[in-house]
């Protein structure tokens, strides 16, 4: 059963040094508030998993929280590179970053397989490309009926999944709406999970019997964190702060500018 926590309590209790952590969100509902709390609590040696690492992961990597990144597309969408991620990969600053790199199809299938309790995911992919040459986690298996070679990769089973959603009720049942990405799968695939929400309500007032819902007992901690996805957006609540995504390019180019910004806006800011 999900319990209600403050953000600092939830991170203190459910995120440990060395954990495999998936903070998911596909442009939409990126859990910035929770990720910043992970930075404030100075977690180290994390393996960060995410299909589309963007600014939040750039911040975590630049602050030295991660030793490994599992991903399929890393960039500041529509703007350019992630300078902190590139510096960690290209120059090992502030700590070297190991990469476990996939395609979107592979990671989406690996989350799905994780949620489905399977040890690996099978899909039609990677044919004729170079990633299988550099990533030993990509194998091929023959269909026992047709002989067709299918790609296989280990399922994603994070120690902890962290997502942001629109709302939860007081029992801890969570509604996710709009571009739902792989957030439901990330939570179901993980051993522990933290869900920050825009608001906690008496009744989810679901408009469809087929709404995307995480029932209370699949979530470890529910945290009220209004605005917790900013500068990303929350469908029905607020829009994406595109100007900030452009601004990040300048902030993050230089180590010192980056550290100053993080100091002023994250580590010394109240959660």
């Amino acid at each position, binding site marked *: 059963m999900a319990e209600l926590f403050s953000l600092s309590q939830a991170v203190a209790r459910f995120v440990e040094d060395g954990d495999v952590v998936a903070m998911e969100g*596909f*442009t*939409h509902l990126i859990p910035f508030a929770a990720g910043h709390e992970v930075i404030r609590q100075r977690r180290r040696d994390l393996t960060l998993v995410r*299909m*589309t690492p963007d600014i939040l992961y750039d911040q975590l990597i630049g602050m030295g929280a991660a030793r490994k990144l599992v*991903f*399929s*597309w*890393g*960039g500041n*969408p*529509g*703007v350019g*590179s992630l300078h902190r*991620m*590139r510096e960690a*990969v*290209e120059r090992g600053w502030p700590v070297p970053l190991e990469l476990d*790199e*996939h*395609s*979107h*199809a*592979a990671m*989406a*299938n690996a*989350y*799905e397989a994780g949620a489905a309790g399977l040890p690996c995911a099978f*899909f*039609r*992919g*990677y*044919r*004729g*490309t*170079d*990633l299988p040459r*550099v990533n030993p986690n990509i194998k091929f298996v023959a269909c026992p009926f047709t002989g*067709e*070679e299918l790609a296989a990769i280990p399922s994603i089973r994070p120690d902890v999944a962290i997502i942001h959603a629109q709302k939860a009720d007081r029992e801890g049942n969570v509604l996710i709406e*709009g*571009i*739902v*990405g*792989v957030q*439901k*799968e990330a939570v179901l695939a993980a051993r522990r999970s933290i869900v920050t929400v825009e608001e906690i309500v008496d009744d989810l007032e679901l408009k469809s019997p087929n709404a*995307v819902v995480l029932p209370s007992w699949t979530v470890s901690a529910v945290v009220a964190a209004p605005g917790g996805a900013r500068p990303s*957006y929350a*469908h029905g609540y607020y*829009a*994406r702060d*595109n*100007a900030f*995504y*452009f601004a990040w390019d300048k902030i993050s180019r230089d180590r010192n500018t980056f550290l100053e910004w993080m100091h002023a806006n994250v580590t010394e800011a109240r959660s």
Partner: protein
Amino acid sequence: MNYTTAEMMTVAAARALSNDDICFVGIGLPSAACNLARLTHAPEITLIYESGTIRTRPAVLPLSIGDGELCDTALATVSVPEMFRYWLQGGRITIGFLSGAQVDRFGNLNSTVIGDYHRPTVRLPGSGGATEIATSCGEIFIIMRQSKRSFVAELDFLTSLGHGRNGTERQASGVKTKGPTLLISDLCSMSSDPDTKEFVVHSLHPGVSREQVRENTGWEIRFAENVEETPPPNRMELEALRDLNARTAAAHGVTAAD
């Protein structure tokens, strides 16, 4: 009307699409071309973004693949695992529209690294959806700015399979879809030779010389027997594209990258 080479490229790409197409759309140049087609001659085209948005009709171009505008104007939005399993791998897409940092003569693409994979000179964003878009869609259109740095003889890394490094690997490895058939740049349009699978220039954009194309291609580029001149953008196309770009810039609170 005057127009830029970027506008010519986007207009030429848009023209290649029709009402019946089901397009898997990447951010940036592909997204501009697909939406321009929808706003001009192909209002019924179905656009799908990998964020899960199906038959979306954005009024402004998304900055990111999962912008709210895509969901707000979509027929339906599905989860990302469903998008990649039922929609892309399920073979329901007629055209995948890709771009990349490097392309070779056989339409193979690199969006992973420049230099050695383990010690890259430039770490690019990576595959995203591209690897499986390249093999699961009915055919692939590529749109890229042309230069010797981007149109290369040998890719540093093969992220997305075109016809393979020798033009035959795609078929040999049992991939059933057509692969790259069209490449549109800011200089010209190329199509895949049915036999050799090599990209051949079939249309030069107005004012572009063969020499210019050669100078901006890293391999010995071939020209079709009859090379045409691409019709310049007409007024309707240019106005639609500029309106779209203006709306986009206003919505994102910044000047668009292009």
